[in-house]
């Protein structure tokens, strides 16, 4: 098991390096830079001398390979530098938003799991009945509706029907749980519904497959109760693909709620992404992409551990 984990861990390093390299090159292909954007402002009247001086100050006048090496030297020490737009340390910028994005991701995951697993199991057990059809319609509707669109509908409904809008400013849960939930429950529902749709479909198909396995038939032949067959034999085995989907979606939610965060005006990582791109804030953008890539890689690593725990055959291969 230890050898298996070490191997998996070491594979993370070249992946991260590849991400760093591709990210660094790609964002420099986008036209315009942070200095031009900041000082062109509304009228573009700032002299070229000031623009050149500012470029030199933040190191944009150096060759790209030199900029990359300087940045990588920082990354190795977990120092992502300062934001080119605000001048604040990158970690400070990210730390502020990370708590919110993490909370939305956790809440959406809870919504998704609470909906998906019972519905998926029920749908598989009642295959081709009205229950199965209803669950399929519900989940396909979730897949078809983008979460940001559902978010807009939710906001409009609250405005038009209830003449109410969620708070615009984030309050940490420990400061005021009601304020916090009043703001975050809506994006969590909008995102969680779509997320649950994917997981419901996966749970249903995995359960259908497992329920046809020989060991389930054997369990039934032994006279085991249906409840025990489901919880002890079927569900545990069907959970492997479901777990993959849930985990990857969770990693995606950390930085992927770009539009949804704009719709609900959530000061999260997704919105920071948009601002970093809009400002051509290279250092911040690079750090954010590394954060999201890191989240995916870590979640994948944890998934590998979970796989090995759920299915011992994997670690002995």
């Amino acid at each position, binding site marked *: 098991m230890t050898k298996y984990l070490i191997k998996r861990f070491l594979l993370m390093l070249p992946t991260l390096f590849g991400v760093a390299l591709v990210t660094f090159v790609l964002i420099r292909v*986008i036209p*315009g830079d942070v200095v031009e954007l900041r000082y062109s402002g509304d009228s*573009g*009247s700032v002299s070229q001398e000031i623009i050149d001086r500012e470029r030199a100050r933040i190191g944009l006048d150096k060759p790209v390979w030199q900029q990359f090496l300087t940045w990588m030297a920082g990354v190795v020490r977990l120092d992502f530098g300062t934001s080119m737009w*605000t001048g604040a340390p990158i970690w400070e910028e990210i730390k502020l938003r990370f708590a919110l994005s993490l909370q939305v991701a956790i809440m959406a995951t809870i919504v998704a799991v609470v909906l998906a697993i019972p519905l998926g199991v029920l749908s598989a057990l009642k295959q081709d009945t009205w229950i199965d059809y209803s669950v399929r319609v519900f989940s396909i509707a979730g897949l078809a509706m983008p979460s940001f669109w559902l978010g807009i509908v939710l906001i409009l409904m609250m405005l038009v029907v209830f003449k109410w*809008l969620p708070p615009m400013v984030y309050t940490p849960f420990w400061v005021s749980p009601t304020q916090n939930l009043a703001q975050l429950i809506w994006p969590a529902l909008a995102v969680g519904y779509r997320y649950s749709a994917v997981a419901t479909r996966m749970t249903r198909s995995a359960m259908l497959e497992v329920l046809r396995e020989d060991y389930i038939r054997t369990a039934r032949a032994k006279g085991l109760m249906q409840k025990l067959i489901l919880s002890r034999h079927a569900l545990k085995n069907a959970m492997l693909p479901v777990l993959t989907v849930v985990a990857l979606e969770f990693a995606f939610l950390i930085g992927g709620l770009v539009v949804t965060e*704009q719709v*609900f005006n959530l000061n999260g990582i997704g919105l*920071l992404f948009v*601002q970093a791109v809009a400002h051509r804030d290279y250092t911040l953008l690079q750090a954010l992409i590394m954060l999201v890539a890191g989240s995916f890689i870590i979640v994948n690593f944890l998934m590998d551990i979970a796989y090995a725990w759920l299915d011992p055959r994997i670690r002995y291969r």
Partner: protein
Amino acid sequence: MRRPALVLMALVVVLLSGTVLPASAQDKPRSGGELVFVVPSEPPSYDAHQEETFGLIHPMAPHYSTLLRVDPTDKTGTKPVGDLAESWTISKDGLTYTFKIRSGVKFHDGSDLTAKDVKASYDKILNPPAGVKSLRKTAYTAIASVDAPDATTFVVKLKYPESSMLLNLSSPWNWIYKADTLAKDPKWYEKNVNGTGPFKFVEHAKGSHWVGKKNADYWDKGKPYLDGYRAIFISNSAAQVAAVRGERAMIQFRSFSPAERDSLVQALGPKITVQESPWDCLNLVAMHHEKRPFDDKRVRRALSLALDRYEGSKHLSKITLVKDVAGIQVPGTPYATPPAELEKLAGYGRDTAKNRAEARRLLKEAGVPDGFAFTFKNRGIPHPYEPLGIWLIDQWRQIGLNVKMEVIEASAYHPMLKRGDFDVAMDFQCGFIVEPDLDLPRFLSTSDANYGKHKDTVIDDLYSRQGRATDPEERKKLLRQFEKRLLDEEAHVVYTLQWNRVIPHLSKVKGWTITPSHYLNNQLDTVWLSE
């Protein structure tokens, strides 16, 4: 009655209630409450001397004072009044301005403000120390020196008389900082706040909000009326509208679009008041003077003559941020072009058929009788660039020109203009105070922003003379000559339509008057809430 008619009626009632009656005449100011407003951008640093964005002015201006300011009740935004300056005198030769600085003004850290602080702040703007930027240094080339001979006197000496000097010293960017702090660390104000304004700094949650609370020691006793304010940063325009509609925010000080205004009026009815003003922002068309056939003034004039500005104004003002047909100054301001004068310029006459016939004649004379094809480069911003671009192309087609629009991503746009990598391109300017000296330098032959690269010593000379003219009537005459040369005789650029600023706000917000600039009137000392 049909629904659109009802909306229109509601809009008219609301517009009348908001704009015809001055806010101050409606009620007596009352104290208390927190003003919540939306800011579509965010300050990159905290130092106004080195920033260009309203994202800094809107949340932070309430913390600071300036030497002079623009009268917060003046709709034209062109009347200078004292802020830290109690009074001032100008020497007969127009070369020495002596300001008496108010006594008893305190910084938020409790220390007293003196003329030394004003001098140190202006020194930083005029001659920033090494490693410190000042974006406004070039606006004060007329200043020879600044001095503070005693604690309450601040003296500005000029190299030559400049009629715009008082307005230029009312710049909303020229916040007064503490001299001792600047002496220790000239970059301190990039990350910290300590001013003498009506509100003290409380909190900045990056990406989320900015909070200020009433400064009980503010020099103008009885003000500010508000207990505090909260600026919420929202970049998405739909979310901004939702914030006002859901009454989570009371106002957004930049502008909404006409459609957003209408949706708010329809949803909130009498709870919303709309203030509108011509905006000191404008899209103009730059034509590259070193590329054929735009090196020929007849072709450039034809491009202006093709535009039916009055009809365009009627329709475009319903869908985007533009409205008035104007010359080189915002309509309604002291140096604006009178309508009768305006109609004499190429493309400003009311008879469109006649204008277009003249355009065709000029093209024929220039050797392109059947028109020609060119690419018009436009900036990738929906409002008002996109509808304006489409309108321009349609207008030019009316005189036989075959124009293709190429949209360039917003951040790559200015570098493209600077490189001169265009034949014809949309240009843009936005001022913080309507004043010829501040709005027109871009048309000088040596300007970095003269993207069409025209060389015109007559323009340069007229600009210089109008700036030094102390008699307003003489200045007007020179400005009309400048305008005729720029937009008609040489047609160096083509002006489109003046932007229109639209501020729908909750009716309980009182004491705030719209001006042509979204950089002005943000100290909030006069603002109060009726509920």
